[in-house]
């Protein structure tokens, strides 16, 4: 059973070689840090003081996460979930996958693992990008010293984990939609609509009921310390609950499909 599952995951891993998903998370992860680095290299005035100031890494981290939490992470996750499933539609390979001796649950979970792997990769490249955005200007300009304040690894790791959980409802629902609809645009369209709805509803006192809102809620309430209505539970608790619901429904939708390729 475990061997079958591991073989399923490995086969999914092999499919991702040189695929668009792998490039997407690399580009998505390095996009914001790349812009920050470029701005600092083009406008170096004030960098010496900035790099000597305490809390350098926290400020850089907060600055980087603003666009990441609100825009890049949800968008890349929507695309990644769709791409993993589209790989089978586009190559006409669902029938070959379903003619292999794998339980449907294995096929379903192996693909879900690959989507989660892409999210982890995205976060890895993003964090690596933040680090590079911190040290590259110091390596380029003699007047800029390497930051002296320590990197708060524990805090960063914990917050990465929080954001990872926050994004899980998007993973679950996008996966469900990608399995349900053959078209690449249908899940993306629905995802965009929900994402815009979540952003528009942020000021609403019940914004926590919207599954795509947790990243933005989490970022604005904890990282930016903005005043927010008290949530009945943590964003991560809501996100985890939605993820379980969406993943469960996704499996039922997938397994119940009469035509498997």
């Amino acid at each position, binding site marked *: 059973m475990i*061997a079958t599952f591991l073989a399923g995951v490995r086969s999914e891993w092999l499919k991702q070689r040189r695929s668009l998903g792998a490039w997407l998370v690399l580009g998505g992860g390095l996009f914001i840090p790349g812009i920050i680095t470029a701005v600092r290299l083009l406008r170096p005035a004030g960098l010496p003081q900035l790099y000597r100031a305490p809390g350098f890494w926290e400020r850089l981290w907060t600055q980087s996460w603003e666009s990441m939490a609100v825009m890049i992470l949800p968008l890349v996750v929507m695309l990644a979930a769709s791409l993993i499933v589209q790989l089978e539609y586009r190559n006409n390979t669902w029938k070959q996958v379903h003619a*292999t*001796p794998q339980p449907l649950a294995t096929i379903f979970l192996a693909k879900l693992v690959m989507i989660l792997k892409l999210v982890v990769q995205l976060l890895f490249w993003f964090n690596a990008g933040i680090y590079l955005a911190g040290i590259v200007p110091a390596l380029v300009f003699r007047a800029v010293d390497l930051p002296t304040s320590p990197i708060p690894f524990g805090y960063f790791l914990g917050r990465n984990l929080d954001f990872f959980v926050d994004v899980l409802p998007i993973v679950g629902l996008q996966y469900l939609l990608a399995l349900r609809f053959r078209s690449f645009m249908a899940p993306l369209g629905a995802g965009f609509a929900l994402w815009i709805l979540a952003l528009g509803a942020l000021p609403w006192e019940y914004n926590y009921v919207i599954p795509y809102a947790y990243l933005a809620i989490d970022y604005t309430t904890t990282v930016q310390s903005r005043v927010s209505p008290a949530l009945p539970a943590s964003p991560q608790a809501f996100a985890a609950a939605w993820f379980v619901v969406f993943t469960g429904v996704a499996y039922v939708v997938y397994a119940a499909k009469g035509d498997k390729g």
Partner: protein
Amino acid sequence: MEPARTGGRKGLRMHAVATRGLTHRFSTDTVLHQVDLEVAAGTIYGFLGPNGAGKTTTLRLILGLLRQQEGTIHVFGKPLRQHRIEILRRVGSSIESPSLYGHLTARENLEIWRTVFRCPPRRIDEALALVGLSGTGRKRADQFSLGMKQRLSIAVALLHEPALLVLDEPTNGLDPHGILEVRDLLGRLNREHGMTVLVSSHILSEIEKLVTHVGIIHRGAMVFQGTLAALVARQEESSFTAIDTSDNARAAAIVTAGGWDARLHGGKVLVRPLPAPEVARIVAALVAGGVGVHEVATIRKDLETIFLELIGA
């Protein structure tokens, strides 16, 4: 339901595939109606029918790609519904257009399926060599010609050395040389490895030199199923020699009196196809009886014609 059995060289043996009363509908359209397909183990079964006859639907049902609605499917004597995983371990397939990951090389494509089927790494080289794709190197599958894609699909299907190979129109897109190669390969797999092959086609001539058994489906119903020899016998039955004479009624009487089966049809005397010396004897008897022979013609229907007649084309 008891697994279906059939006679064979070694006495009773199990069917590799047996369907009973297989019926399938897409919304209100009945595409398969009471299909009883029987593929004896160790044979090469040609599944024939025009486009849209129900071949692919039947094969997809046999592979569990479509949910069964009515009827039963047994593969290796076991019901597919209850033993899907166990059965698929021993089945290799290629359905309709090639299923390949276009951004990967031939070797990388095979590596995916090798992982799933957990077969030894050497099988990749062996499968590539079998289909003549050993030298494709770093070329991606989406840069392959259709023929190369078909061959790679066959390599995927036989990678894990299945007991049953299910191929849907595997010669589509192949040039005559490629068709010959695929035919030779399937024959070899059957002879040397005892692989049962279920291969569909809409062109009888493409597979008649390969198959041992034939099933013909038309508009979702089986119109013929049996050995190729039985189909050839049907061909013999519908062939005849037609003789046109100055007095056909008298000619028929002379021929019958000579011990041959003769009948009058369409203003001519018809007899079963006979060897040339026999034909000469009939002509001599007619001339001796005072009947002028105007024309003697033997009409032999080829298998393709029989096939077309069976499907009412």
